[in-house]
């Protein structure tokens, strides 16, 4: 019987059925970071257990690292304490740690792929909801809580109920100035922030066939913002070409065997999907959020919703709550909204191609007066790639501060924070109240090039107009 990739990976990793009907699922790759793992190590110690497969556990530090300070101790003592704790835990349990001194540190969801640790047909877990990113490679990747991190540390497995699969086809051609970020913001807008509950999303169609791995990662990354526990793309030649020669990729004779095996995991023609959604690529425009969740989004040419024109009580209330927080005018165009900060980076859009695209168009332009603009590479390797191409200089000449790798202002657990009710044009993934470090700070999510357009004009802008893109 034809099967989906999800089913094949699930079956290959199912250990047994537990008493409550859930599956004990083998987790082949466990990624950890400093924020959600310390308590889990504490629990493992308290129970007198060990780490079951230290060689399949990989750590890095990303959430709390200052992007303007390399030397320790960090000015923030709590951040330093978390750093020390992770270092101690990795040493004690024999876990590979991509520390800042290694030159391989970065956001966990960028490090896994660039090291070749993320591979097709595997299961991955990490105490971070954006673990869905790794699905871009045809892996089934779950964000988990700390008690489950304990479970994976101690048993290399976890208890989980099987998900349904929703196939999402995006077909046709994206218009100029429309990016992977717009595709996922559009999907979340259509399917809802909890539309994916109980599902894994399988993304496909010719748009995904042509997408680079970095574009696929951007889409899979935000699956969780649509409520889906996992999101993936079937592995193909693009996947294999990306993985070839990476440090943890199979080498020599075992490479060919691995590719054959990886191919076998792709969804079979005619397999069952619990739901299918079809999207026409030409319908997707540059998309920006206006509210306080990623589903509250509109195209750059639309107006901010007006709650008085909405009849559903619930929707009306959420629009009112969002607009009160965002201090935006109902019915007004979103274009032209003044910004204070521009943030380029995050596990959604902090990879080489993101900075390349911005540099290509921002060269010779200047960030508007009064706008604070920061560019934060997703990993030390991304930083070096950018610097070799001189992208850092182009961005710096335009007025972006070029920082060192980390999560930075996506969630502001480090010193990069909004102040007061500053409004930030952001390439990150969440626009929740207070997300970027100020309890009244405001976030508008968009693609990196739209962030660049907002940065140079000082307000939310249409990148197609600002950079004269043909459309």
């Amino acid at each position, binding site marked *: 019987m034809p099967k989906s990739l999800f089913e094949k990976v699930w079956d290959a990793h199912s250990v047994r059925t*537990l008493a*409550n009907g859930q599956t004990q699922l083998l987790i082949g790759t466990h990624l950890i970071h400093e924020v959600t793992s310390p308590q889990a190590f504490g629990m493992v110690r308290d129970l007198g257990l060990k780490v079951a497969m230290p060689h399949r556990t990989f750590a890095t530090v990303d959430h709390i690292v200052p992007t303007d300070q390399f030397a320790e101790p960090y000015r923030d003592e709590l951040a330093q304490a978390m750093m020390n704790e992770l270092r101690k835990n990795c040493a004690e349990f024999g876990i590979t740690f991509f520390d800042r001194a290694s030159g391989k540190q970065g956001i966990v969801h960028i490090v896994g792929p660039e090291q070749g640790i993320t591979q097709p047909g595997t299961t991955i877990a990490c105490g971070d909801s954006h673990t869905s990113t790794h699905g871009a490679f045809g892996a089934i990747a779950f964000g988990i*809580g700390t008690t489950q991190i304990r479970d994976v540390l101690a048993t290399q497995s976890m*208890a989980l109920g099987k998900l349904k699969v929703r196939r999402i086809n995006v077909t046709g051609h994206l218009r100029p100035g429309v990016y992977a970020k717009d595709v996922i913001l559009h999907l979340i807008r259509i399917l809802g922030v909890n539309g994916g509950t109980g599902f894994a999303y399988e993304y496909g169609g010719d748009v995904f066939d042509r997408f680079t791995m970095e574009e696929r990662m951007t889409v899979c990354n935000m699956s969780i913002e649509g409520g889906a526990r996992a999101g993936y793309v079937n592995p193909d030649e693009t996947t294999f070409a990306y993985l070839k020669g990476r440090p943890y990729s199979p080498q020599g004779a075992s490479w060919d065997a691995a590719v054959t095996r990886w191919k076998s995991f792709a969804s079979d023609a005619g397999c069952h999907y619990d739901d299918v959604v079809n999207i026409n690529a030409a319908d997707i425009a540059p998309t920006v959020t206006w509210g306080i969740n990623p589903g509250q989004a509109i195209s750059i040419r639309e107006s901010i919703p007006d709650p008085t024109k909405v009849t559903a009580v619930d929707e009306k209330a959420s629009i009112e709550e969002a607009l009160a927080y965002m201090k935006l005018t109902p019915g007004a165009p979103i274009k032209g909204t003044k910004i204070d900060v521009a943030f380029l980076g995050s596990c959604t859009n902090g990879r080489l191609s993101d900075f390349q695209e911005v540099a290509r168009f921002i060269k010779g332009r200047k960030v508007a007066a009064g706008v604070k603009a920061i560019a934060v590479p997703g990993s030390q390797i991304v930083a070096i790639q950018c610097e070799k191409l001189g992208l850092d200089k182009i961005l710096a000449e335009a007025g972006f501060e070029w920082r060192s790798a980390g999560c930075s202002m996506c969630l502001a657990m480090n010193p990069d924070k909004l102040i007061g009710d500053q409004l930030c044009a952001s390439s990150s993934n969440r626009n*929740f109240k207070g997300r970027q470090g100020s309890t009244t700070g405001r976030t508008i999510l968009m693609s990196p090039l739209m962030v660049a357009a907002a940065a140079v004009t000082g307000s939310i802008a249409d990148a197609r107009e600002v950079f004269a893109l043909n459309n």
Partner: protein
Amino acid sequence: MALAKITQIAGRGVYVPGNDIDTDRIIPARFMKCVTFDGLGEFLFYDVRKNADGTDRAHPLNEARFKGATVLLSGANFGCGSSREHAPQAIQKYGFRAVVAENFAEIFFGNCTTLGMPCATASRADIAKIAAAIEKNPQIEVVVDVAQQEIRFGDQSVKAEVRAAARDALVNGRWDAIGELLDGMTAMKAKAQGLPYLAA
């Protein structure tokens, strides 16, 4: 490691209205700079409960009449966003023993269940009924009956749902899976043998 069999939670309730209440709102990221979960309870809903100067804002959890509530009620898509277990930990450490909402985000639901804190869903209309009863009499006992899948308050009762796997785990005292997972270690290792990428 015998775990409590959680068949029902009985206590006073408090209704925190709103949909899509995310885990950043439940526990803002800056309070996650910690290496234990101790003390998280006092930061529950901090930024919507407190002003910048630390004084109270209007919020149900700040009202004296709701102090000591152990059942938290809210709207749709409760607990969306980040996978941080700090969110259910903060709710539990604040003193809650059960959460009732129209529906829950998936990771949050799993995290709560693993802590032995039932997440029960009920219809919007029924949650409104319970909220109205609590508003009228904050002392009213709210019983979240996990086994019977109903919520009783005063002389009323409404239907609730606790998903089968979670209900089984709670009612039978196996909500923390570690024991069972450890029992499956031999099977796990056998399964791993067949997967080339797991070779040491």
